[in-house]
């Protein structure tokens, strides 16, 4: 990208050359979706970073001395998160020990390439990197799993395994927290998806900035209020090195529709994204709705609302040559479908409370 030199390019005389509404000096470079302000590149860096700092402070995301793992995929969000968090840690003296934590699902031509990006980030940002692989943790790569089960339901395996893999990697790093690059658009999308699936447990949880505080390692989302557009603009202006290829196995059509819908709404009214998050935050779940209750997996000890955690059930199926085991619709209140790993049956363990449900972190 040779065209994008730092510093102001000589603007041609045209409609695009208005001044930044914040400094009034430099040429505006983007329109902020959140506020519709027109600001220059330098002011954008300042407000973008300050808002994330403010989110971190207002929500007490970290304590001095915390060891924090950044879930790093090599994609735009986690790359920008690693960059911004290292900056803020230095600038505001958070006194955090930061690590990059990546999961190698074993997807040839996709994850192997994106992990190369993370390895460059390790050097660029001076953050130690830990990679945990499905192969080591479960004995199966996603390539193996797809060979066994085909291209249907494979995302269920991947999602369940990844969630646990991040926790296991974080335990190996002995960190106090995991941060992920989920942004405002992602969260709005998840609110919608949870409504569409009737997944009440997740609906109430998916807007929390921190989840899993009762679990082994809490997770938080410093980009909860950060628009995807701004993350990508930031990465572009700063020339950050990120990887952008769609997973070769992942045409997650249902989520794709929700995503497209959100983007269409954003074009008409950019605030829609924050408003959906706000709606999600303010839902009050009726106290007669039964919620799954958290326990631990009898086999591996991971948090689970069932006797065996979903990863163990899926792994059982794979190892016994019955990969469909644990896949598919489960009877119950939360109507788990193929992509929904909670088997919320009306067992005696289900009671109605909203705290600390079911130990996973799909938001």
């Amino acid at each position, binding site marked *: 990208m040779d065209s994008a030199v730092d510093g102001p390019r000589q603007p041609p005389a045209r409609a*695009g050359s208005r001044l930044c509404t914040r400094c009034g000096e430099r040429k*505006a470079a983007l329109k902020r979706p959140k506020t519709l302000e027109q600001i220059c590149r330098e002011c954008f860096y300042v407000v973008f970073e300050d808002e994330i700092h403010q989110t971190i402070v207002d929500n007490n995301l970290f304590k001095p001395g915390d060891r924090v793992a950044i879930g790093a995929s090599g*994609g735009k969000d986690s790359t920008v998160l690693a960059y911004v968090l290292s900056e803020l840690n230095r600038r505001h003296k958070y006194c955090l020990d930061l690590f990059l934590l990546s999961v190698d699902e074993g997807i040839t031509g996709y994850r192997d390439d994106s992990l190369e990006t993370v390895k460059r980030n390790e050097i660029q940002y001076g953050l130690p990197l830990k990679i945990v692989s499905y192969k080591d943790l479960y004995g199966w790569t996603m390539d193996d799993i797809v060979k066994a089960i085909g291209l249907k339901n494979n995302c269920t395996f991947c999602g369940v395994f990844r969630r646990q893999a991040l926790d296991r990697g974080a335990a190996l790093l002995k960190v106090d927290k995991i941060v992920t690059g989920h942004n405002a658009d992602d969260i709005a999308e998840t609110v919608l998806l949870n409504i569409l699936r009737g997944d009440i447990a997740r609906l109430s949880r998916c807007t929390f900035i921190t989840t899993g505080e009762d679990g082994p390692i809490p997770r938080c989302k410093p980009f909860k209020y950060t628009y995807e557009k701004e993350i*990508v603009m930031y990465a572009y202006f700063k020339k950050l090195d990120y990887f*952008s*290829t769609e997973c070769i196995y992942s045409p997650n059509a249902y989520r794709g529709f929700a995503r497209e819908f959100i*983007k269409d709404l954003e074009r008409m009214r950019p605030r829609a994204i924050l408003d959906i998050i706000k709606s999600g935050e303010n839902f009050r779940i009726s106290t007669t709705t039964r919620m799954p209750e958290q326990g631990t997996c009898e086999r591996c000890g991971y948090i689970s609302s069932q006797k065996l955690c979903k990863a163990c059930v899926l792994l059982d199926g794979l190892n016994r040559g019955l990969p469909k085991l644990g896949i598919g619709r489960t009877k119950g209140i939360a109507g788990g479908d193929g992509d929904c790993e909670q088997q919320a049956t009306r067992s005696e363990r289900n009671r109605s409370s909203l705290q600390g449900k079911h130990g996973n972190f799909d938001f």
Partner: protein
Amino acid sequence: MHLTLEFGGGLELLLEKSTKVHKVDLQPNDGDGKVVMKGLLAWVKSNLIKERPEMFLKGDSVRPGVLVLINDCDWELCGGLDAELEEKDVVVFISTLHGG
């Protein structure tokens, strides 16, 4: 009109050999010698995009979620589809829709 077009964030995968940067020479075809973004998008669709044009375009504009910059300025500040291009302009398209 000579333009430099750049495709990123995964959009390059829709183009021949996944080439990110394209130096192009565009003939204005509407008589008044102007090239506007709307015309450029149509030109890109018929001349550069090799597969899945729906990943890039929706209706007569880019697909929501694709960012456009003209000379490193958000096209929303330049008039969007009606933005007039000039000789040697650099237009960047970045998809935000690929994994994070």
